């Protein structure tokens, strides 16, 4: 376990700019933009506010609270998520390029000869290189998101406080807390579905002698084209799309007809669907087949790593 910890630390160090700097910079950027724009715009009267007879955010929140008190906490929580979403837009790219680069770079810069001179098995190396982008990176991204949301929340509470509004309404901490864990749950379930595609990237990384990006993209593309031309079917493309998120279609979406406000979005889409997504995932043969394929690809990667010098 100590060795695995050392490997994880090493991967973190290697991917510091991917895993740590990227989310901090992006979250910092959005927080800064939000704070500056609020300071310069939030206190002046703008057109819409005038019509509603509110002068600033404080009064706006007060009015919201008066009209739809049950919606406020959900609306505020979702607003914070929207404000700190930028790191998550970058996140798929981080996963993609770190998996594709990790076993390729160590061969390219010859450091593989140093790693192999240590009493560390190839399977440990490969699992660490899968574990860090797939499990540790999202935890860091989530940590940064939580920090950014708290900064935004405290800032908004202060603004509303100074403007004489209900400042505590800007700190729906319970709901925020629930949203962090729920969305992490959503991520983990999606990751299980995506795992065969992620393992494919790792395998490419272990054998491509150059241009891993092309090696990753071209074979599936060629297979899709061959299937389309000769069989007029789209099985491979559909399989890939299903694992990227298409699997959610299996969910009963009738409940989405009754969404009437932020609270419904929160209750139905974010919180409410987690249980169903989990049961769809656990009972889907497609997901389990995908996991078996992922296992095979990881095994192949380990065999490649054993032979690589």
């Amino acid at each position, binding site marked *: 376990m100590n060795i695995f910890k*050392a490997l994880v630390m090493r991967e973190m160090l290697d991917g510091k700019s991917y895993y740590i700097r990227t989310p901090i910079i992006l979250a910092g950027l959005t927080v800064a933009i939000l704070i500056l724009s609020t300071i310069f715009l939030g206190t002046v009267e703008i057109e819409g506010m005038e019509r509603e007879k509110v002068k600033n955010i404080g009064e706006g929140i007060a009015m919201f609270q008066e009209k739809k008190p049950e919606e406020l906490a959900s609306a505020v929580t979702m607003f914070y998520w929207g404000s700190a979403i930028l790191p998550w837009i970058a996140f798929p790219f981080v996963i993609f390029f770190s998996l594709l680069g990790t076993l390729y770079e160590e061969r390219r810069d*010859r450091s593989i000869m140093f790693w192999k001179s*240590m009493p560390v098995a190839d399977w440990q190396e490969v699992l660490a290189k899968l574990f860090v982008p797939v499990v540790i990176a999202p935890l860091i991204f989530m940590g940064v998101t939580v920090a950014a949301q708290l900064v935004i929340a405290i800032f908004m509470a202060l603004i509303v406080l100074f403007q004489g509004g209900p400042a505590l309404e800007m700190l729906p901490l319970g709901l925020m807390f629930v949203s962090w864990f729920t969305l992490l749950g959503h991520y983990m379930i999606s990751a299980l579905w995506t795992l065969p595609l992620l393992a494919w990237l790792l395998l490419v990384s272990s054998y491509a002698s150059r241009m891993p990006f092309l090696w990753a993209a071209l074979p599936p593309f060629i297979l899709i084209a061959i299937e389309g031309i000769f069989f007029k079917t789209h099985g491979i493309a559909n399989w890939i799309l299903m694992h990227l998120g298409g699997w959610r279609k299996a969910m009963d979406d009738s409940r989405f007809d009754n969404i009437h406000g932020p609270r419904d979005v929160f209750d139905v889409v974010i919180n409410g669907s987690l249980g169903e997504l989990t049961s769809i995932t656990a009972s889907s043969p497609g997901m389990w087949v995908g996991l078996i394929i992922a296992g095979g690809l990881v095994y192949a990667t380990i065999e490649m790593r054993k032979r690589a010098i």
Partner: protein
Amino acid sequence: MTEYVVEARGLTKSYGDFRAINNIDFNLPLGRIVGVIAPNGAGKTTMLNAILGLSSYEGKLTVLGRDPATERDALMKDVCFIADVATLPKWMKVVEVLDYVEAVHPKFNRAKAMDFLSRTKVPVDRKVRALSKGMIVQVHLAVVMSIDAKLLVLDEPTLGLDILFRKQFYQSLLEEYFDEDRTVIITTHQVEEVEHILTDVMFLRDGEIVLEANMDELTQQFIEVMVEKGKEAEAMALKPLRHGSSFGKSTCVYKNIDRETLAKLGETRRLGLADIFVATMTGDGQ
């Protein structure tokens, strides 16, 4: 546990039809410094890679009682190697390299490594990328010499380094690292620099071992004579491996001929390892 550090029987590595090493047998005991001397492309690196568990092979190979092809990770607790210059990860700081090795290697002595480094000008808080080539090698050597291994393999360890550093390196290898419980395998083209520390040598050519010998015995076998004038016919009668002339005198190289006999022909001297290598490789030394 065997008494040999490395035991090879019928060791072969083929790439298609080409046999990079061809059915070789050898044993390396503990407490030796073995020089593997070979021309480029003779199979030296292939042989070392097999010993280090970096590649597959045919035949039987045991290193410290283990099969390197399947047990590389366990083997690396007792085997250390520097396979190539500049394989340290360039994005790590020197201290981070030490942190990592300390975390994964049970036989690494960090204090010892820091002691080695304190005698150099290596800045330990800098990234490997920012160090000179010589410093990178110094860091790597500090790491391997602080690991309590039974077998150390150095493939061209001092390539591209200046002569002062090379002298100093071999000296500390001999004085501070080597003892009767360890074996060191060194490959190098700078034969003159290592011959005084080697206990054994192995010459490879075209994937085969052409000579495997104890250094003392080997250098006693080869004698060069500056033949005195008038004794040329007598000298040729003893069938020298090589003969040539320098400063107007004939010189003849003999193998396995009694020194007393040769002394009658003229001034004798022992042949250096480089000359023995050349004599062997050109086919005359067999």
